């Protein structure tokens, strides 16, 4: 995925401006920065979630492969099967069973064959490290899982449609440390399957799991801007920009 001069504004007020970097394939890219720096806004523009916000405008170009995500020729619904999303709070569909939750994306696409659905569900649940927990109880209600398990269910749900990129919006911030650790381990394994872009306000997490880091900061005009994008090791040991250094050293939160 390649971003070029991406600017997102709401009703004229710019939330994040001029972001340009490449999301490497099969790697974990972290968007870090203090609150208000526009990380989540940027993330949501990557799967066109802002289409549903009145007054939202996304400028610049976001390319997935050769396709401009915002071009008129491609339908947003198709994009969202190529760019999936996992949210901050686990949000499985409460009225559906575990199985139905996982294959919901496939069903929305019109895939009905039992064999395909079963295979996809198994594959996604294994990838989300949930298979052993639920394999005998696929019909059970999603709400009977614990918080961490629910989040992994959401990951499985997003994976079932085999996206090329998986967006994660602070996926572990609502979870306990053990669940957090498990999901972080998961991300390392998922890399082979999808490219991950994760927003996190936890620097240590970013340092642990990501290959590339993009640091954003709110500018004087209230809009987030891109300060530095570098491989994680470099960003955390020898950043180019002094502001990055300040953030990493905890000078501001």
């Amino acid at each position, binding site marked *: 995925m390649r971003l070029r001069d991406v600017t997102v504004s709401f009703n004229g007020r710019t939330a994040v401006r001029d972001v340009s970097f490449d999301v490497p394939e099969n790697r974990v890219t972290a968007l870090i920065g203090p609150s208000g720096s526009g990380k989540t806004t940027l993330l949501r523009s990557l799967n066109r979630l802002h289409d549903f916000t009145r007054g939202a405008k996304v400028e610049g170009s976001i390319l997935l492969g050769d396709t401009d995500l915002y071009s008129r020729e491609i339908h947003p619904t198709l994009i*969202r*099967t190529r760019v999936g999303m996992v949210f901050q709070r686990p949000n499985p569909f409460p009225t559906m069973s575990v199985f139905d939750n996982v294959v919901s994306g496939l069903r*929305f696409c019109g895939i009905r064959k039992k064999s395909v659905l079963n295979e996809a569900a198994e594959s996604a649940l294994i990838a989300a490290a949930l298979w052993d927990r639920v394999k005998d109880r696929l019909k059970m209600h999603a709400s009977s899982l614990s918080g961490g398990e629910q989040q992994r269910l959401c990951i499985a749900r*997003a994976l079932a449609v085999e996206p090329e990129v998986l967006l994660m919006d602070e996926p572990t911030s609502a979870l306990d440390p053990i669940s957090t650790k498990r999901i972080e381990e998961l991300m390392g394994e998922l890399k082979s399957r999808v490219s991950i872009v994760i927003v996190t306000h936890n620097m240590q997490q970013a340092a642990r799991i990501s290959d590339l880091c993009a640091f954003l900061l709110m500018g004087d005009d209230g809009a987030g801007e891109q300060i530095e994008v570098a491989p994680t090791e470099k960003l955390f040991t020898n950043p180019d920009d002094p502001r990055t250094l300040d953030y990493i050293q905890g000078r501001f939160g």
Partner: protein
Amino acid sequence: MYWGVLYGAAIVFAFICIALLLTLVLQSLPAWRHSGAGLFTGSTWDPTNKQYGALPLIAGTLETAAIALLFAVPIGIAVALCVVHLVPARLRVPFSSFVEMLAAVPSVVYGIVGVLFLAPWCQNVFYPWLNSVTHNFVLFSNVTSGDSTLLAGMVLFVMVLPTIMALSRDAIAAVPKDQIEAALSVGATKWQTLYRVVLPNARAGITGAVTLASARALGETIAVSMVIGGAFGISSSLLGQGNTIAATIASSWDDSTTLTKSELVALALVLVTMTAFVNFVGRRLVARSTQGATL
């Protein structure tokens, strides 16, 4: 002293409720003694000959309510979906208030509109058309007057629509944005999201809305009595005149014998039990779905 006054008020209210129930029960005793279960199974309602079979009345009550709900439920839910998800934010409140005004209109007014406007139209235009289009299908046969079960159902439809719409809107609006975004992010279209995620999530509230609306439809007296025609037999045609429990009470009360009054009270008791039960269930469902929002 303070608590005394408060409890005093509550006890007065409780006393009134108990007195109400007791009065109805006591008043209906002669009826139970006279007709017993025949009240429900008999199909002849002939007070002058002391025949009190209320089956046609019960059938009429259920028929009119069913007609009303058949149309009000899908339309009400569809409108609620629109208001919450399709209408621009600025128009939402004005439109909701607008439709809720429908709920405040007194039932006599609906009755008058029905009598002066809809009944003639039904008799002269609508029913003949219905009859010919369905080739005199039994349900739509026997076109005599505008006053009919179908008209009563139509009037009830307008009366319960705002209830369903308002409560469904609350339930649908209560579905967290999270859920909608999750569905969209996995590749669903807007309609798929609404139909397969939002509506199931709002299921409890919507069922509550429908239940409360049916309580209203079952118990509506004045408007129905003005347009239903007051016939006392079971007609197989919806276009024929009919009767409901509430309408019968309203129209037969004056100049009736004590026994008839007792029978009417017995029917009222039946109606109260039905509506109380339905109401109770409905409110539970609504409360559960919107977590304490007030009605």
